[in-house]
């Protein structure tokens, strides 16, 4: 795996000098490489991993399973495009298994999401069924442990 991408995908907060040191490459090379990834769309953006459970003014998320009828010409892509258009849809994946799409949907309340599913999603032509699963608590998100502070968990003792 590309070491630079792996590093950035785990933590995009490093300076290019730090990345250069860690990977043993010249800083100019790292800068150019990142630029190239950004320009070509390999790197789509940088986001903070937020532990929303610690924030009062938070939101609700649900995982929604969607079964659809694929279109003759465009397969699942047309449906995907329709779903992607909703700003409530945070992530969208085509799945192998008992349903076709998995959506992560974000709303201000459970009611909000329920209305979105009932009114916007299930009414799309070609949607056969939906299944809504509300996310109760996030323990781990994009590799980050959210329910405990890892730094504080250093249980090592100096023994010699």
């Amino acid at each position: 795996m590309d070491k630079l991408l792996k590093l950035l995908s785990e933590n995009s907060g490093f300076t290019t000098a730090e990345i250069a040191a860690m990977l043993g490459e010249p800083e100019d090379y790292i800068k150019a490489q990142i630029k190239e990834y950004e320009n070509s769309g390999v790197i789509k953006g940088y986001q903070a991993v937020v532990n929303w459970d610690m924030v009062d003014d938070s939101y609700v998320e649900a995982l929604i399973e969607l079964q659809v009828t694929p279109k003759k010409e465009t397969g699942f892509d047309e449906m995907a495009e329709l779903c992607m258009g909703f700003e409530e849809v945070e992530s969208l994946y085509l799945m192998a298994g008992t349903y076709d799409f998995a959506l992560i949907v974000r709303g201000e309340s459970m009611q909000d999401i329920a209305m979105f599913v009932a009114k916007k999603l299930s009414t799309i032509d070609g949607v056969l069924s939906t299944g809504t699963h509300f996310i109760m608590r996030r323990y781990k998100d994009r590799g980050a442990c959210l329910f405990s502070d890892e730094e504080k968990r250093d249980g090592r003792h100096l023994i010699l």
Partner: protein
Amino acid sequence: MIDYNNFINKKISTVKPSGIRKFFDIANEMDDVISLSIGEPDFQTPWHIREEGINSLKKGKTWYSPNRGFAELREEIAAYYKRRFGIEYDAKKQTLVTVGGSEAIDLVFRTLLDPGDEVIIPEPSFVCYEPLTVMADGVPVIINTKNEDNFRLKASDLRAAITPKTKLLVLPFPNNPTGAIMEREDLEEIAEVIKEHNIFILSDEIYCELTYGNKNHVSIAEIDGMYERTIVVNGFSKSYAMTGWRLGYALGPVPVIAQMTKLHQYGIMSAPTTAQYAAIEALRNGDRDVEMMRGEYDMRRRLVVDSFNAMGLTCFEPLGAFYVFPCIKITGLTSEEFCTRLIMDKHVAVVPGTAFGESGEGFVRVSYSYSIKHLKIALERIKEFLDELKKG
């Protein structure tokens, strides 16, 4: 009143307490200390390895293991040395599973040494060799490895240290605290000297999986003529992040392992059963974990070395273990002073090089077995410390 000194063995009274401890005790008194002093992996034991330990407990496998360790584990250990270093050991007769590499080191000294036998110990090195030699009635003979030699053991220094009383050479590479390694050519030169004299070798290879820059560890037992006079000591602590499981092993010639086994049998009986089940899993399916951890350490190593050099504390490139050993002479402070002031002023704990032998004067040991986030905070504070020193 009892005078306890009359009851306590004279030699143990002369053994100095470890110099690493002192700074840890200071650090314990402060609540915002950033420590770079711990010498064990920050990773937890990989889950699949822990699970095998747990499974063995669930199945009720709570009895002693055979004295030498489970046959299955010893076969895996022998297979590992064959696969990794091309060295063949008879699992039945040439392996002994111990309570950490430390027990194996102690057994080697007590099995080989007669009173007055000299043991050559390159320093700076891990703190246990000298006291354990003394307790086994041996006489430690120290060779100081040097910064300009990248802290490798030089054949000429070895030759100069050998006397008719020399029985054993300790080879502590990859090295704690310097991070130095010995490459094949270095070992071949050492082997030439060993062949001229009748000497045994204790090769402490506990950090064998932690080498960087495409420099795979080479065991001296691989070098022509050395196999029959080398006891290899290794373990699971550093390679698989299994320090708390307390499991190590010794490999070597049949008669020596047989006598070590006898001592182990009387003193310890057998290594922890649960740990042995976990270790079998580690050797069978742990290669990817080792690779992952090595990759992580390597990034941290580069970052830390780079930062120290940028701060002006020159640092030879350590190619093994998880320590860097920057030279602090430029500050005009002794190692002890440097560490004391650093912890007092900036609440950062590192270990003075002198804790690993007098030749460590002018250096400090910095462990990078910490998260990058942690390392960055510590390095920032060390930089502030140096800037303030410069201003006076």
